């Protein structure tokens, strides 16, 4: 079980969970609840470069399509195929449903702590 308190956050409503040098990235509970029922996810491919502050892909709900911004610069080393098959997993378990795992990290956007993020979105 992932404790949301242990994660780092961005002002664009993504979370980051470091696993050694690598990082898992997903979207926050606030983001999924604002978007509503998610129906589709677009992810980069393994081997793609991603850049801090730039879109890594997008999520589509019945209301709208929204970019998901990558909090770190690096290389995609794994993607979560499960959410490609069933985007509703992000609604039901936002902190367990990572989007991509990034390695070779060389940069990151400014992170918020869980408390800072809660206050920001409070």
């Amino acid at each position, binding site marked *: 079980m992932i404790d949301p308190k242990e994660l780092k956050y961005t002002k664009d409503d993504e979370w980051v969970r470091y696993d050694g040098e690598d990082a898992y990235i997903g979207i926050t509970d606030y983001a999924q609840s604002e978007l509503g029922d998610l129906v589709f996810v677009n992810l980069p491919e393994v081997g793609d470069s991603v850049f801090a502050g730039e879109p890594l892909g997008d999520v589509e709900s*019945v209301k*709208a399509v*929204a970019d998901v911004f990558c909090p770190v610069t690096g290389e995609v080393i794994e993607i979560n195929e499960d959410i490609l098959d069933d985007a509703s997993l992000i609604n039901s378990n936002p902190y367990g449903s990572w989007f991509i795992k990034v390695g070779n990290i060389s940069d990151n956007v400014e992170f918020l702590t869980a408390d800072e993020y809660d206050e920001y979105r409070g």
Partner: protein
Amino acid sequence: MKLIFEKSIPGRGQDIFPACDVPVKMPAAPLREKKAHLPEISENEMGRHYTALAKRAHGVNDGFYPLGSCTMKHNPRINEKMANLPGFAKLHPLQPAETVQGANELIADLEKMLCEITGMDGVTFQPAAGAHGEFTGLLLIKAYHTDRGDTERTEILVPDAAHGTNPASATMAGYKTVVIKSNENGTVDLDDLKAHLGPKTAGLMLTNPNTVGLFDPNIMEITRLVHEAGGLCYYDGANLNAVIGIVRPADIGFDVIHMNLHKTFSTPHGGGGPGSGPCAYKDFLAPFAPGLVCKDGKYVRAEKSIGNMTGFYGNFLVMVKAYAYLLTIGKDVHTIAENAVLNANYMQEKLKDLYPIAFDTTCMHEFVIGLDPIYRKTHVSALDVAKALLDYGIHPPTIYFPLIVHEALMIEPTETETKETLDEAITAFREIYDRIFNAPESVQMAPQTTPVLRLDDTKAAREPHLRYEFCDCE
């Protein structure tokens, strides 16, 4: 209601031709291996089937249709009559130029009118729709920079209140989209614009008035800044009905623009007919224009043409309809804008004591309700209000757009509605507001009177069934 295929009875049909009484010999090659799936149904039943379908649909002919930014206005019948004249309707696109001088004259005349309206110098009618016109305009911008050897310009600036087609067109044209923030007034944030302008800027795409229905007061400075950075300015003409006959895009600094004949110029759209998104440009872009133009009785191509955007000359009969519209309205073309703006402000004024207006100021041709504060209190969403309107015989406004307004309802009454129709819609909105607080579940359960009730749009998106499966019985 059954599908027409489900009403099909083998052997039943329509006696269009008498039965063939001579042996038919056909070579096997062009024949199908299996019979095509065609419904077999009597003419009487077929007529009823389509009448029943028409009764279940809602179009401009059925009632108010305030779908924001789509300009679902009246399509004058005389336009159809003119487009049906055999001299127009029966032309073939491969006819030699000298046999279609009337059609060429119409295209040239319409071009002149649109140049007068936009302040531009030339128009291509090739683009078949608005987004296609945007794409054409961006290719013109790209050709211009490339022709000058300026290949470092890779970015198109697009405000966050833009139509979703703008970033899509920029991507299609091979550009990177850079989003410019809106300020607290709902217009372009000048500081953010300045921060993103530079040697990489190929151009700016702007809708003015924008999707929150506001005319940018800094427009002259915006276009000046873009030009100073070496970029060009693209005007998305989707909302041209708000300013037509009053403001010319070229006069406020734009270099290229598309117009939607199927919005501003009253030709049908949304299933009612093909679109047409002519792209108008200033002289310095003319060498890159797409398609063929008729010059001195011959078809010629511009010297550095970007190529063909579509086959032939675009949707010609849509041009005929737009031409008929402009001839009908004549010098009163400015009344389109005046009535569009008046109608939108009248509705906004009559609703703003109840509904939160996203940017509470005099609007142009449309305005946006931001239902978020009401949603937070009552859990009645923009979607619920939209669905409730269906029970009043009103097509819902655009919802959840623009993205910068939460729980947005984007209302464009258009210039062709009467005060009585607007009053009825205002009454409906006010009744729904009462129900939000007194019987919220009745709004959340709406609609109750339509042929199908609330649809599960999440399920429809997650498990789409896009094909009808025929039983392969024969």
